[in-house]
């Protein structure tokens, strides 16, 4: 699903690499927690997977493709198989819940008959049935994140990237979001989630990949958040 082979990423303006010789493999169907302090390279890791950045050296394989050799025009097709969720939701404020999810399908040219069928389905999966016509500012943070997850999942992606999805949410709401991500994982989507939330990681007991200063310092199945912080 994802393979990093001696990946180093050095940003032009910095002397210390954001990722330094990282090698790891993530299998299909796994649920991964990506942990580490700010500046440890988590975001760079996710950006490399999405091909928003290219590695300075090494190879990144995602969904069977080596991203360095993937030409620009093929990137959109690759991203259609990857869902993304962010800490700040990134919803369109002037569109309703339904329209926000439908937007992801409209812009890849799906017919409206398809949209009318799958959007209600996915809204049910994330538990937002009956709130189709609300706008984001009429929803709680947790509900907004559910809309974002619905948008990421509506294409039934093989891979879901979640960048601190619970970072803006209170603990109770976070648990709901985690249950939802767990459910999506059980439906067959590989989930890679970066987080600072020790409690969640400790409860879920999934594989934990810890980065520190750009180095891979821990890769542990059924891990906890960490010994030290």
């Amino acid at each position, binding site marked *: 699903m994802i393979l990093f082979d001696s990946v180093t990423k050095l940003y032009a303006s910095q002397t210390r690499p954001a990722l330094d010789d990282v090698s790891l493999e993530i299998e299909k169907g796994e649920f991964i927690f990506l942990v580490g302090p700010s500046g440890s390279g988590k975001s760079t890791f996710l950006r490399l997977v*999405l091909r928003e950045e290219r590695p300075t050296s090494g190879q990144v394989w995602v969904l069977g493709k080596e991203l360095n050799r993937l030409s*620009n*025009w093929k*990137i*959109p*097709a*690759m*991203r*259609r*198989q*990857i869902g*993304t969720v962010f800490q700040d939701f*990134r919803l*369109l404020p002037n569109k309703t819940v339904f329209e926000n999810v439908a*937007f*992801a399908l*409209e*812009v*890849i*040219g*799906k*017919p*409206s008959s398809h949209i009318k069928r799958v959007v209600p389905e996915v809204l049910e999966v994330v538990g937002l049935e009956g709130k189709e016509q609300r706008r984001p500012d009429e929803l709680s943070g947790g509900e907004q994140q559910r809309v974002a997850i619905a*948008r*990421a999942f509506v*294409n039934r992606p093989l891979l879901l990237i979640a960048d601190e999805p619970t970072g803006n949410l209170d603990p109770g709401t976070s648990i709901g979001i985690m249950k939802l991500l767990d459910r999506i994982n059980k439906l067959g989507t590989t989930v890679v989630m970066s987080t600072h939330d020790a409690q969640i990681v400790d409860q879920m007991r999934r594989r934990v990949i810890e980065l520190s200063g750009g180095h891979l310092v821990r890769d542990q199945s059924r891990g906890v958040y960490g010994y030290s912080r």
Partner: protein
Amino acid sequence: MRATFVASEVGGGLRRNLTMTLAVIITVAVSLGLFGASLLVRAQVGTMKDFWYDKVEVSIFLCGKGSDTPSCSGGEVTEAQREQIKADLEALRPLVEDIYYESKTEAFERFKEQFKNSPIVNSVSENALPESFRVKLSDPTKYDVVASAFAGRPGVDQVNDQRVILDKFFRLLGGLQLIALLIAIVMLIVTVLLIVNTMRVAAFSRRRETSIMRLVGASNFYIQLPFLLEAALAAGVGGLAAIVALILMKGILIDQVLAPSFQFTAFVGWEAVATIAPIVFLTGVVLAGLAAFFTLRKYLRV
């Protein structure tokens, strides 16, 4: 491809950016209008050249009593000289298309006719005007051939090319056309800069949408298309306004104002407008499209 979705994006974008859109439309209209006007002036110069060059003659004035050029030192032109000139002119066919001999009497009649309302007629006697050969050339630009053959030969006072007078006038029109074209080019540059800026603002004001589009895997084409269409649409409206201006120039300025006052010359017809209009329109739309495309490539990267 979902046409309704793209259309609603375009409509929304234009409305959100209404003032900028209007600015683009107006500058496109003005610059293309000037561009079209300069093309129209060029067509007009072409029409007039065709019209006038067809009528211009080379005049070979023969020596009269009062002529004081060196070639007239032998006095008035003799019968033999006149015949020789005529024969030599005939020899120059087919460059020489037509030869017409104008005697002193005829010259005087024509003079009286031309200046019949002027008191100058009374002060000119019948013998004061020189006799001449009026020669029409098949190719008016080959005046030199005739001039070198006849200027300075005994019995010939002067060789005059009417084209010289016309050329001054055409140079003036050409200058006007050049000025209009230069202004049009400057305006087109301004238009391009404005479109670049408009696209930048539009891309920025919709950065949320475009970033989401990128994330969910919309193709570059799909992301950029609404912006491109917006620019092309604004430019198209501006182009149409320029065409309307062009039609007014021809229909009112030329046909109603200029043509009645200058009946001695020909003016461009509607076919010139018909050729210029699509050029003007396409220039606007293509230029706007290219400006938008290159701006978006910079601001809406994958």
